[in-house]
């Protein structure tokens, strides 16, 4: 039984037809990755799911509940959190304040404390830097903060937009390790990545997106061995 159900979604930027009928199903506890080149519509898909963009056609539902009738700021209350592209941290607020903003949708003080502890166990670096202004963190730390902030809302599904962007290889591995850890605690993850090899190495299943359409959908293992994918996205001949 799939938990997130995206069906035949068409999203436009003005007159530009960005998503041309996309369908994605994600089961509870899965890591699903969305790979594709620049302008394929990966970020648009995430923004559509999180309500920041409204599709002209199609449906998005979570646990059978129609998400399209909610406004963007209400979606997080339904259990969907996003780690935005380029991290989108609040540069002038401290690490703690950033995390508290992540729990904006949760009003219980106790829950906030618990979630903060959980984030700090996951990212001890953030605990060390908790009074520091977020804008002065390194790229890797900012990615940790963005991820931690999304987790503060206690999401059922975590949407991650290019977490490896601009990071050194060693940090990319660290981030991907944490994604797996987060997944093991029961959070479902939809991961958008250009670094297809890394993404497929931790995902259960994957979709390949090309100019607003899904061209292949398969298990991660099969995608890694698919000649088209290998040629186009994994840099193999």
């Amino acid at each position, binding site marked *: 039984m799939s938990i997130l159900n995206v069906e035949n979604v068409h999203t436009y930027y003005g007159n530009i037809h960005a998503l041309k009928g996309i369908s994605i199903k994600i089961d509870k506890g899965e890591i699903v990755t969305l790979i594709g080149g620049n302008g394929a519509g990966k970020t648009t898909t995430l923004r559509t799911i999180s309500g*920041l963009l409204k599709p002209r056609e199609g449906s998005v539902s979570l646990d059978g509940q129609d998400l399209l009738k909610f406004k963007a700021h209400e979606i997080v*209350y339904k259990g969907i*959190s996003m780690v935005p592209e380029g991290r*989108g941290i*609040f540069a*002038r*607020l401290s690490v703690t304040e950033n995390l508290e903003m*992540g729990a904006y949708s949760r009003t219980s003080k106790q829950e906030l404390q618990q979630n903060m502890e959980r984030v700090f166990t996951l990212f001890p670096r953030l605990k060390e830097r908790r009074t520091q202004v977020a*804008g002065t963190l390194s790229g890797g730390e900012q990615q940790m903060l963005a991820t931690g*902030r999304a987790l503060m809302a206690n999401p059922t599904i975590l949407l991650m937009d290019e977490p490896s962007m601009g990071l050194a290889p060693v940090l990319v591995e660290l981030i991907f390790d944490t994604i797996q850890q987060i997944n093991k605690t029961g959070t479902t993850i939809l991961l958008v990545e250009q670094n297809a090899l890394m993404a497929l190495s931790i995902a259960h299943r994957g979709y390949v997106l090309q100019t607003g359409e899904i061209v292949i959908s398969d298990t991660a293992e099969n995608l890694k061995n698919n000649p088209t994918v290998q040629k186009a996205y994994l840099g193999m001949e």
Partner: protein
Amino acid sequence: MKKENFLWSAVKTGLIVGVVAIFICFVGMVEVFSKRDVIEKLITLGQFVLLAAMFSAGFIASRHTSSLLEKNKPVSNLVAGLVAGLFTGLVLALLVVVGAEVNLRAVFLNATTTLYDVLTLDKGVGNVWILPLIGAVAGLLGAASLLLPQILRRPITQALVFVIFMAFFSGLFRVVMINQGSDMSKAAKYLFGQTGLTLEGTLIFFLGVIAVSMLWSYKGKDIQAGVTRLPKAGRLSLRVIVYALIAYVALGLPQVSGPFIAQVIVTVALFVLMGLGLNITLGFAGLLDLGFVAFYAIGAYTVGLLTSYGAFGLQHIPFWVAVPIAVLVAMASGAMLGLPVLGIRGDYLAIATLGFGEIVRLLAGSDFLAPFFGGPQGIIGIQKPCLGTLGPFIRVDVPRVCNGLELGKPQDIYYIAVVSAVIIAFVAWRLRESRLGRAWMAIREDEDVAEALGVNLIQTKLLAYMLGAAFAGLGGAIFATLIGSIFATSMQLIVSINVVSLIIVGGMGSIPGVIVGAIALIGLPELLREVSEFRFLLYGATLIIMMLAKPEGLWPSQATRRELHHTEVEAGVKA
């Protein structure tokens, strides 16, 4: 790259400062300032400005030398300072010599003979050699000040700043002290002359500050440690004592200062109210509003229309009832401005709000709406606040009689303004620490992310506009009763610009910063009548210098301080 010779660098510094000094002469500042004394019969403000220029030439040259030679070399530093001051003096001397031959007044209106007399210390063109000599000495002193050890330099700098401050405000202190009776009056005449400090006063202030400063640098740590060692109750009662003292001074001030100072403080308090309002929209939520004066106008007109006994008075209700209504009306107009501009961001928002401010001013002053708002004649005869019962309204142009205490004078309005400012500052502080405050700051940083985290953008932004407008409306309401009449012409764009500037100078998003900014940009120019002619010149110069030297503002919020000085803190920790 080959490094510059330090002497050549000093010459350049001297020439540049000389040109700046000529500029100051040509705008007329030196001549106007020379009517005021710093120390009576010894040095005028005009001479002081020139001396300060030469002194800083020496200081700058000395600092350049240190950085060129990569360490302090006393002899080179002093020589550089001397050379720089000398050249500044030479440039000024050149001005005098040229001015004696050619009629510069044809182009520069302020190049008068009085100016030349000031420059040559009334000794005539023949004695012009005195200028470079003074310059060299001042430059030498400037260079020497850099070489002083910290322990000496700080008290001397503080003492100099304090003396200059006291000299600037000597007139005010003199009047206030003379009002206090014969003992104080004698002291006042001993310390302050007619136009500046007396020599005795200068020495007392200078040495006094040095003594206090030295004492503090020796004992300050112990005192601080003593305070932190105090038990919690002790620290609390200490704080209570300090607050009580401040309250006592604040309550007594208008009684001793007279109406002028009271009015200046009211003006500052009104700008604090507006500043705190804009600090919510701009400082917290990051929404630049350049038409902020509109809400001030709306608050003022509401109180005017509701309480006036003049021709345009509508309800003749007491001030105390009218103020909450004015605040609500301002809030509603905040929402009215907010709704159409919700989707606009950044620069476009600034332009849209600029338009809003102008529309409100033009409408209020228009002939079209003159039957309601009085047009260019404005609304006059605003009823003064009354503690007690108001007599009945008899007819137009006859004020209602106040059975009780009428708060009519600026000294009385002072209390209303200061109490309002304190309450609003508290409200602003609580708002910043609230969930709503967090949401505002999140919007300021990144709207999309804030929305994705669950912030309702429409609601949160509208609240920012409405609360900001409410604070400004309160300011306008008090302004209306202070002046007793309102005219659309006092609601100029410059008021909005003043509010934005005071927030920036004080420190964006910081509540104490708003107060400091209002005192610096509104209060000081009001008090310094001599400066009023050059208000905008100094205003602009202050803004530029502030942005270069202290971009976070005079009293920045914690976050900005951390952001801008993070590297220094880090370095400090490692060192």
